[in-house]
């Protein structure tokens, strides 16, 4: 502990102990605890207490009968726990009978303060901290704390109840996981008394008719198997698994969610997953729970690396059931292979479909979400029923947009429940997008494109649904273009593309900005991937889409302008931004995309479009875009000039990014490679001076926004590594006079940014780079801006000051 903190500590302890000086802010106490925790982890708690008797006094102070606020009481309980976590310190505190006073019967347990949840929570957390060594275990056993923990499991405060459960697990682990672990028997009746007591309690709970008690026990077990990896967990599971299995015999099954959590936690534990009984219980659970309840268990099982194949099939059946039901209910004619063929489990009867709309929607959405997560996993079920899944998703989407006309009664009900349901539409479109990674029979792919087009065309698609539809369409179009890079889209996809572009044309005119925005995003992505492809190019150039995109640079909504910038950047990289054909524009010469984007950069009032422009420019420079490659120096100079004056720090960072790209082009890529050859270096430095890159970089070095300064620092370090061999980095030599430059830089650092740097010669730049301690600057910048405020010293001062201020206010009242 630094001396300044040590000096402040007694005063702080006084304040904390004084009920007349309430601490205003809980977060201060939390920070204080964090600090003490850090201090005790770094050194001996015992020494700390001996060096600072005020701390012990504070702890003892609580034992006196008085009106302490519950938050201070809670704080002291937790603090005592932190100190007592070290066994010697625990014994030190025990000598003074402090711990029974705090955590035993005479403490807050019996007092009125116990009514405050924060005190109960502090009590539990204190015990949780101290339960680290055998002495603590004895203390816990003797003080009767375990019984109190049992009762706190049912606490009305959920935080307290949950912490109580975790504490029980901690105690179990402590009792069974000591140095004598090797001798611990797998039979629970041989375990230490304290552990036996807890196990008995868990058994009682699992046998109980009261669902909350069953839930508590299941939570404790879930935590135990999830967090503890001692051998004893096996014993515990052997002991309790029959009771867990018996829960399934009850109707309805109590605490289904907690049960699912427990089974998954056991299944994931490497110690326990070899138990065949576990898989049997899991299988039973799958069949006993309702589809909604069993969904998470099924999904969890399927994500496991290894589990019995039969169970996997059953679990997959549970997830597929809702989709199979939809498929069945909407089937126009038999013949389509069912989703559940070969899978265990019967098709849901019509009456098991959840009766309410929200339950039905919830079930479908969760099934779709689970399947979506499952699809890309290597351990996903195999064979993956790609075709029926596609058919089911298409059927769901048709039910949602009202284009399905099912004959069955169940289909009619589904139709009424899902009609216009945005949640299901989004989930189904997400899943449909993921399904594009595996193709399907041509007929189904045709249906997929048809329904996607329906969604894109329909004026009733909400903006969020439309966005998902665009994303799914992109996935399918890209997956149709195989093999990548060389081949055109499949003929059908090519046909779709034509319709798609006409939809896109309309969507870009939508009065809803979200729609225009997602349309542009789609166009950008599509062009990025397909820009070089003849079919795509032809279709795009024949449409009005490029021209509309260019017009959207003037959109009133800044997000749309930003997306339009990205799209224009992408289109013109591929040479797809043809000059407009309409005669009225022919007279006035059309601006080049570069000029248009520069105009956005210099005139747009919002940050997003300007940032987007900078990203496009950087990309253009890196990729050697024709207009840029013509005269890169002029380009960089213009962009840097615009970026350096920008008010948005992200634009300035992007400017530095662009500068870095320019540097790399001149001097070779960043990396361990040696210094650039002198001839090239001289030329490069000349060029950099001409584009005024240094002025921009130096100015950024002292930018008021830290990320800009950091980026600039990185850039200059890179330049120095390239320009100055490390051997002569100290060599000042007979370089040019840089005093004026350094003086200007100092003024900039002091905040006077107005002054220009003037003409910079390459030699002067090198000299300045040599003289600057960029590493030190980098370190300073790496520290977060509030590093001063976050020091413990500052915390203590703040707390004292707050109390002082409170006192003043009190005085003012008189």
């Amino acid at each position, binding site marked *: 502990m630094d001396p300044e903190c040590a000096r402040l500590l007694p005063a702080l302890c006084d304040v904390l102990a004084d009920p007349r000086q309430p601490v205003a802010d809980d977060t201060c106490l939390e920070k204080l605890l964090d600090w003490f925790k850090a201090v005790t982890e770094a050194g001996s708690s015992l020494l700390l207490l001996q060096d600072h008797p005020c701390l012990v006094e504070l702890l003892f102070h609580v034992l006196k009968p008085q009106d302490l606020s519950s938050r201070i009481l809670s704080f002291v309980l937790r603090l005592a726990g932190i100190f007592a976590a070290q066994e010697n310190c625990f014994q030190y505190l025990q000598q003074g009978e402090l711990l029974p006073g705090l955590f035993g019967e005479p403490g807050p347990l019996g007092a009125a303060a116990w009514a405050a949840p924060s005190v109960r929570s502090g009590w539990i957390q204190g015990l949780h901290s101290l339960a680290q060594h055998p002495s603590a275990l004895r203390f816990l056993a003797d003080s009767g704390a375990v019984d109190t923990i049992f009762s706190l499991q049912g606490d009305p405060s959920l935080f307290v109840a949950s912490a109580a459960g975790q504490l029980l697990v901690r105690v179990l682990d402590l009792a069974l996981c000591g140095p004598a672990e090797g001798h611990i028997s797998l039979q629970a009746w041989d375990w230490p008394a304290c552990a036996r007591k807890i196990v008995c309690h868990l058994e009682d709970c699992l046998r109980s008719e009261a669902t909350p008690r069953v839930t508590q026990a299941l939570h404790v077990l879930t935590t135990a198997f999830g967090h503890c990896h001692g051998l004893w967990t096996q014993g515990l599971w052997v002991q309790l698994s029959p009771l867990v299995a018996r829960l399934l015999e009850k109707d309805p099954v109590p605490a289904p969610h907690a049960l699912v959590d427990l089974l998954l936690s056991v299944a994931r534990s490497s110690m326990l997953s070899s138990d065949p009984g576990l898989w049997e219980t899991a299988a039973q659970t799958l069949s006993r729970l309702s589809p909604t309840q069993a969904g998470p268990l099924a999904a969890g099982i399927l994500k496991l690396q290894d589990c019995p194949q039969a169970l996997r099939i059953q679990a997959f059946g549970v997830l597929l059931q809702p989709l199979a039901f939809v498929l069945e209910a909407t089937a126009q004619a038999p013949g389509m292979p069912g989703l559940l063929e070969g899978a265990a489990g019967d098709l849901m009867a019509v009456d098991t479909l959840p009766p309410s709309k929200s339950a039905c929607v919830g079930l479908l959405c969760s099934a779709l979400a689970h399947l979506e997560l499952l699809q890309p996993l290597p351990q996903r079920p195999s064979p993956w029923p790609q075709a029926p899944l596609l058919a089911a998703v298409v059927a769901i989407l048709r039910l949602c947009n*009202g284009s399905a006309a099912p004959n069955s009664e169940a289909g009619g009900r589904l*139709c009424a429940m899902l009609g216009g349901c945005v949640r299901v539409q989004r989930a189904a479109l997400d899943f449909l997008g993921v399904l594009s990674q595996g193709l399907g029979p041509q007929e189904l792919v045709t249906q997929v494109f048809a329904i996607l087009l329906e969604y894109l065309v329909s004026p*009733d698609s909400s903006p969020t649904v439309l966005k998902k539809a665009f994303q799914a369409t992109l996935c399918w179009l890209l997956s149709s273009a195989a093999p990548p890079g060389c081949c055109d889209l499949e003929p059908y996809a090519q046909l779709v593309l034509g319709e798609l572009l006409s939809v896109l044309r309309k969507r870009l005119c939508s*009065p809803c900005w979200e729609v225009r925005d997602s349309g542009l995003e789609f166009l950008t992505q599509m062009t990025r991937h397909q820009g070089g492809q003849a079919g795509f190019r032809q279709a795009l150039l024949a449409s009005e889409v490029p021209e509309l995109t260019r017009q959207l640079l*003037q959109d*009133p909504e800044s997000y749309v302008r930003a997306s339009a910038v990205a799209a224009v950047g992408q289109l013109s990289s591929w040479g797809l931004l043809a000059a407009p054909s309409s005669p009225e524009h022919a007279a006035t010469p059309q601006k080049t995309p570069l000029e248009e984007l520069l105009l956005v950069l210099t005139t747009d009032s919002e940050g997003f479009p300007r940032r987007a422009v900078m990203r496009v420019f950087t990309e253009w420079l890196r990729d050697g875009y024709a207009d840029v490659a013509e005269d890169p120096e002029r380009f960089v100079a213009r962009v840097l000039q615009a970026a350096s004056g920008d008010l948005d720090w992200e634009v300035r960072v992007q400017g530095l990014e662009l500068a870095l790209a320019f540097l790399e082009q001149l001097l070779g890529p960043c990396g361990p490679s040696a210094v650039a050859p002198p001839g090239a270096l001289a030329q490069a430095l000349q060029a950099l001076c001409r584009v005024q890159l240094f002025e921009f970089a130096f100015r950024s070095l002292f930018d008021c926004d830290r990320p800009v300064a950091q980026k600039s620092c990185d850039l200059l370090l890179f330049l120095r590594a390239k320009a100055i061999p490390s051997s002569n980095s100290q060599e000042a030599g007979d370089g040019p006079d840089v005093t004026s430059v350094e003086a200007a830089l100092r003024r900039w650092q002091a905040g006077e940014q107005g002054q220009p740097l003037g003409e910079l010669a390459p030699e002067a730049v090198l000299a300045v780079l040599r003289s600057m301690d960029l590493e030190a600057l980098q370190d300073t910048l790496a520290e977060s801006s509030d590093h001063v405020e976050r020091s413990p010293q500052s915390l203590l001062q703040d707390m004292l000051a707050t109390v002082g201020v409170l006192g003043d206010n009190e005085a003012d009242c008189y």
Partner: protein
Amino acid sequence: MKLYCLSGHPTLPCNVLKFKSTTIMLDCGLDMTSTLNFLPLPLVQSPRLSNLPGWSLKDGNAFLDKELKECSGHVFVDSVPEFCLPETELIDLSTVDVILISNYHCMMALPYITEHTGFTGTVYATEPTVQIGRLLMEELVNFIERVPKAQSASLWKNKDIQRLLPSPLKDAVEVSTWRRCYTMQEVNSALSKIQLVGYSQKIELFGAVQVTPLSSGYALGSSNWIIQSHYEKVSYVSGSSLLTTHPQPMDQASLKNSDVLILTGLTQIPTANPDSMVGEFCSNLALTVRNGGNVLVPCYPSGVIYDLLECLYQYIDSAGLSSIPFYFISPVANSSLEFSQIFAEWLCHNKQTKVYLPEPPFPHAELIQTNKLKHYPSIHGDFSNDFRQPCVVFTGHPSLRFGDVVHFMELWGKSSLNTVIFTEPDFSYLEALAPYQPLAMKCIYCPIDTRLNFIQVSKLLKEVQPLHVVCPEQYTQPPPAQSHRMDLMVDCQPPAMSYRRAEVLALPFKRRYEKIEIMPELADSLVPMEIKPGISLATVSAVLHTKDNKHVLQPPPRPTQPTGGKKRKRASDDIPDCKVLKPLLSGSIPVDQFVQTLEKHGFSDIKVEDTAKGHIVLLQEAETLIQIEEDSTHIICDDDEVLRVRLRDLVLKFLQKF
């Protein structure tokens, strides 16, 4: 209570409600879809239309070729368009006491009813309804009278001939009752019978019922109506909207506790969301104009057009359409745009607050000021000087059979650059376009119908909880084209009663109570007695006086003072009952206690039998029966009057008298 259904059109209703001796007509909508069977009336001589071939029967008989013309496989009547009137034979319309109008679209048949049926009653409507309704009628009359047609076809209406015609003429209903448009004179006369009302105003009809208009949220001044007596309440819901458009929001709370709710005027396109349609409208408009094409919007001169102009006001700048002229052409365009700005009290809250700033509530004022929106009474005159293309034209009539729209269809139909966007849901756009085929122009269907959809209806019904719902039969089943959409129908418990044209419904509830007033002096004389906590009774002798559907209890006439022996005798003869009034009894007889009492008074051998209605106490020795039922007690004994009186007195001990 009976409901006579005179119109089969669910959104253009015309029903007559007989309720408590009043006869109330609810709306009088005019079904104009009949005009789709006629050829358009071109404003400018159209060689295409005038050279259409006449239609002849399969056997080559061409006797109808003057009346019927063929165009792209469809047959049209070449005559002045005619309208399908509400039923006039189902009920004698001269007996109608009042007509309640719910909105300006639902009054278009008014002149036919008020001028030609002997109607002598009053019409009630709000001021904007009347003013805008007048504009609609004026426009209609103007459109038709502007293009006089020499011939009037009637031969085809002959039933035997009609059978031979192709669809849809063959299936047109009641063609014999179709009538030509009314004249301006008839319109003025009809409108003069209207009495203006305000929302929530209570109007007494003959003292029997009270009618009240409530805001319905659909159009300027549109209303639902409450028709109630003291103990019965009928709600008439017609053309209501819960969306936030320009009119005052719908008053739902006042519809609660109705015995019967008559539900008409729901959205005609339940699957189209108005917001999406507006978006679609804007996108298509922008696309067409950007390509150098013109946009034609066939519309009514009031209603959705205000909302469309407001959307465009926000949209045109962002879409880069500021330089495109918008034209609104209607004989009543000017009045419509100006009326909308002065009915502030009938507007939604947002627009009302603007008036206090003061700003015009609708932004089309600014469009006009900045010359972006121009309006003209017709294509003749100033318009032809100002006309610039590409442009957007709003004009009527949405049926495409008359009005300036006919001219633009002829003018722009040949170019695929142009687009016609249908926003009014009243006419099938394909049928409307039929006489213009083949057509190169693009057609976009964006029906904007802000009236209630079925989801909103089911919420509304859940909230207002009417005992019975009555609605057109179309609402009780899914639309024929989407028979699986069980969500597209009115779903309520008990199931809604449905009606169709020319049907008479007996509404399923009986009147059970009538309110009677009591004169103060009579009330003074009453001496109530509390028989249960909170319930007091008093006997009343009075004369019931009924006049103008009001019932009053008055004190009985006092016996005239005796002036002579003869008269005195007669006076006492007149009101003999007053003197011998027996006390009224109340209460119930607890059988067990009664038996105990009997035993106390020396009766033995008592048996009690339970019966369906109560008990029989059997005194076997005395051969006597005492029948105790809920509302009567009988003592049956054999000619033993003394015993009977004894028993009677014992029974009376258990009852209260007053």
